[in-house]
């Protein structure tokens, strides 16, 4: 009875406005769409100027804003798009349609634009939006990549230029969540995780949400990357082609105002001498994305998303190679949205499969067979009133994990054969409202799988300080109910391997991280800036035991421990306009990330104390534009060699170990974990583009870029191999030397993009 009564009371507070001048407040409903395609724009900032209220658009571009006095003016801002202003003279039951045009040069437009005279919506705390136009302005490596484009966000680092895995604020990439149109996918990577598996031409925007997210988001410890797919224009067929030295991508879309479809396909084939590892690398992949958007009464009402990718490296039939694939099918439908009540239903199924034969894993070689399948469905409900908005959600599904590791040589990895199936469900409740000039949001989320469940309370608040300056803060807990364990430093090997563990079973703890973050956003004219302070503390964190851990009593390949980290991010951007078509973004990050594996706090292996980035773009006339990206980071920690020992071999005739004669093997004895630091890394990427009109009014862009044009050191140090010629007595090896994990020569890229 208490629960029913409580829910009813909440309904009164939310839907009836808690008795606060309900009659005086009216809501205005609307949708924000792309002016060119008509597709919905998620995450746009909608502000009612006189009412001093701001909201962000939902996944289907919809918004509801409450206004006390008419007339008012609605302003819509979105990263990478021109501002739109719509006067609202009187209350209306009609749905306001706001088209937004793209701005021409948007390299630095990744900082959230602060609303004027209103509190920032709480959803914006710790969130960055990267329009694909911004991503394209970055000098590409082979081609534009949706995950590598996150280099525009100061919260994200990558272990080296050979990794597309986003490390968010000092937590491993496997502890974040990657979604396509809001649906979770696993291991969205091609070729040793150097590229993402999502075709850039199919994306419209990438949103990075740092932790803690709202209660609506689960399944992540560090944050989430949400890739929004393109929406087709209605009316006529449109499409394009993107060609690089190694890849070909094509996309097309069209349909009616009520049903429109978009599809993109990409294929790549490498059979070239690899710049990093000597030898021929036969490799190819294909990926595919498609969506269908359904609209009712001129409003987007539902969307179906499909994604598939497959990779083929070397040839398993010939003894060594890898094949992996990803599948996703998801659908979302807005059953109800009358301004006060909303109901969304969704369902998704995704599958990741990985088969590897004789792949390198540290000093051993493995056969791997991994399967991850998840089928889930859920509902999200919203009650909206003038004073607050309540959101509830429930989802249920099954998750199936199969993880088989068969070592072919060596004894470093034990054979693993896990086949787990779990029923999982989650629920959340969240209340969002205004308190004076501030906006607040409080919610709680429960994730459960099998016998394990975790409550995750989360709170966010934003307060406008001055015109153009907004303070935001968030605290909350995140958790994951399974662990995806991979080598944090798999480069430069092209092959990779993963282990999956069910959290809460078999001695595997449930990873839980508590976060706190504060953002100060400032906009003034063409300048936009964000200063963020963040801190986190976690437990139940799992990692693959490093080679340098030389304690024999611990034989398990994994280790569990705690994490802590924190830092400061500063980003300042200058945004040009059509008259001054240039843009500059400068960011600096001071951060620290540590782990405690049962002894003492030690630096995390991917911790980078200082990070500096400069991204700039400029247009030269109507046709030419150029951009540069510079990144410098302080060195990553590594474990130094304390000494060298000569390992003896057993004497076949029975004398224990033989050291004075027979073969010996030099081996390192490592010092304190991560107590040394690599020297810093730096790289400069350059790009130039020439845009022109092609046949049939098509738009063409010819691009040339160079990755690591400065040919600087881009990888951390590691000790060279402990080895000497055992057959030649007296041959000495000099002192232990440290070498870069790899050297990356300048990588040129030539691209041709055709849109029609």
């Amino acid at each position, binding site marked *: 009875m208490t629960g029913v009564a409580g829910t009813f009371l909440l309904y009164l507070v939310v839907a009836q406005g808690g008795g606060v001048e309900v009659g005086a407040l009216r809501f205005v409903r609307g949708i924000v769409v792309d002016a060119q395609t008509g597709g919905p724009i998620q995450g746009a900032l909608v502000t009612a100027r006189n009412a001093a209220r701001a909201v962000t658009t939902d996944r289907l571009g919809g918004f509801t804003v409450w206004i006390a006095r008419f007339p008012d003016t609605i302003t819509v801002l979105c990263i990478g798009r021109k501002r739109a202003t719509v006067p609202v003279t009187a209350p209306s039951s009609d749905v306001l349609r706001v088209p937004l045009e793209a701005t021409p040069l948007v390299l630095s437009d990744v900082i959230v634009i602060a609303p004027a005279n209103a509190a920032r919506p709480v959803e914006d705390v710790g969130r960055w939006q990267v329009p694909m136009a911004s991503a394209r302005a970055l000098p590409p490596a082979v081609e534009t990549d949706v995950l590598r484009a996150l280099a525009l966000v100061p919260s994200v680092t990558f272990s080296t230029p050979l990794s597309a895995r986003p490390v968010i604020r000092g937590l491993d990439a496997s502890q974040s969540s990657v979604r396509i149109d809001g649906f979770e996918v696993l291991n969205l990577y091609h070729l040793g995780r150097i590229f993402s598996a999502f075709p850039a031409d199919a994306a419209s925007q990438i949103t990075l949400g740092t932790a803690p997210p709202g209660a609506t988001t689960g399944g992540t410890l560090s944050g989430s990357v949400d890739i929004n797919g393109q929406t087709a224009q209605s009316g006529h067929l449109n499409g394009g082609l993107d060609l690089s030295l190694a890849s070909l991508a094509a996309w097309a879309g069209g349909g009616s105002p009520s049903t429109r479809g978009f599809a993109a396909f990409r294929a790549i084939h490498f059979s070239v001498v690899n710049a990093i590892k000597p030898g021929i690398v036969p490799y190819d992949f294909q990926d595919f994305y498609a969506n269908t958007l359904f609209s009712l009464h001129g409003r987007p009402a539902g969307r179906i998303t499909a994604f598939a990718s497959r990779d083929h490296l070397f040839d398993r039939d010939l003894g060594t190679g890898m094949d992996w694939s990803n599948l996703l099918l998801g659908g979302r439908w807005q059953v109800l949205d009358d301004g006060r009540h909303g109901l969304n239903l969704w369902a998704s199924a995704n599958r990741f499969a990985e088969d590897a034969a004789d792949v390198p894993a*540290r*000093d051993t070689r493995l056969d791997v067979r991994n399967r991850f399948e998840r089928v889930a469905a859920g509902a999200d409900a919203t009650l909206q009133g003038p004073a607050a908005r309540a959101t509830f959600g429930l989802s249920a599904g099954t998750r199936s994990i199969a993880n088989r590791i068969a*070592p072919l*040589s*060596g*004894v*470093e990895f*034990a*054979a693993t054969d896990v086949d787990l199936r779990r029923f999982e469900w989650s629920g959340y409740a969240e209340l969002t409202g205004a308190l004076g000039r501030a906006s607040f949001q409080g919610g709680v989320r429960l994730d459960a799988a099998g016998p394990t469940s975790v409550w995750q309370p989360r709170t966010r608040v934003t307060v406008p300080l001055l015109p153009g300056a907004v303070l935001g803060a968030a605290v909350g807990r995140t958790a994951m109910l399974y662990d995806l364990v991979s080598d944090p430093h798999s480069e430069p090997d092209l092959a990779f391997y993963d282990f999956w563990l069910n959290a809460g079973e078999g001695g595997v703890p449930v990873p839980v991280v508590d976060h706190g973050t504060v953002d100060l956003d400032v906009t003034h004219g063409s300048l936009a800036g964000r200063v963020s302070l963040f801190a986190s503390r976690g437990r139940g964190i799992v990692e693959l035991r490093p*080679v*340098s*851990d*030389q*304690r*024999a*009593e611990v*034989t398990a390949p994994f280790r569990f421990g705690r994490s802590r980290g924190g830092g400061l991010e500063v980003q300042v951007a200058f945004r040009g306009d059509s008259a001054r078509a240039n843009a500059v973004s400068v960011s600096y990050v001071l951060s620290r990330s540590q782990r405690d594996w049962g002894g003492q706090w030690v630096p995390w292996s991917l911790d980078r104390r200082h990070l500096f980035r400069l991204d700039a773009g400029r247009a030269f006339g109507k046709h030419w534009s150029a951009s540069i990206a510079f990144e410098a980071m302080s060195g990553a920690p590594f474990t*130094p*060699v*304390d*000494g*060298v*020992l*000569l*390992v*003896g*071999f*057993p*004497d*076949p*005739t*029975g*004398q*224990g*170990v033989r*050291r*004075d004669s*027979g*073969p*010996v093997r*030099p*081996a*390192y*004895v*490592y010092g304190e974990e991560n107590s040394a630091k690599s020297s810093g890394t730096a790289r400069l990427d350059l790009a130039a583009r020439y845009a022109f009109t092609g046949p049939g009014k098509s738009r063409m862009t010819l691009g040339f870029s160079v990755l690591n044009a400065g040919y600087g050191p881009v990888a951390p140090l590691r000790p060279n191999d402990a080895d*000497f010629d*055992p057959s030649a*007595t*007296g*041959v*000495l*090896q*000099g*002192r*232990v030397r440290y070498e870069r994990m790899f050297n990356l020569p300048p990588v040129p890229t030539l691209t041709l993009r055709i849109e029609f």
Partner: protein
Amino acid sequence: MPVIQTLLVAGDSQQISWVEWRVPSDSAFGREVRPVDPAVVQISLILPNGASIPFLPTPGVPGRFVAAALVVPGGRYALRGAVAGLTFTAETSVPDSLAVLVPAGDTVDGATCVGGSFFCDLPYRWSAFGAVAYMYFQSQHDTLQMQTFGSMRDPSGVMTLLRDTGTVRLTFLALEENAAAFMTVRTPKGSVSGIFGMFGAATRAERWIVWP
């Protein structure tokens, strides 16, 4: 810093321990032993019944220490002592006897080793409770020259041998955890508290292979 390497082998009446200095990371190194002065080395083997047997330096072989003790399969042993003022302790359990099921006979016909011209594969299957890894060595019985060796975790599979002529010795070792973690991986794991090193144990079996 000193390093100790002690592998107890069941059935042997003498147990060997090597104690030497590790090479500083900024020094050149070769294969030579950098022995620790025996005057600062005290090592004792603690038998399952609690008796303590000292390891004594081998005259003329710097770094080598010998304890006169017969180690038995399944027994639990400890190592105690001090090197250059650093006290240390370690424990190990000797695996059970290594029962070689394949190849079954004492003498193996080289024709059963199948494969290429230089190397061939010989099936094996064995068991030893308490063992986590296995090593094999192919060596000339007269010169003790080691020809090939390998390590594996599976108690069944194939081992790779070098095709030869005449009769050669095949030695198999069943290793417990400490020995496996030190001798069968590229970066050895230490099992001695106080200083870095190995205190492991093994049981041994032999076959003779007669090449056609």
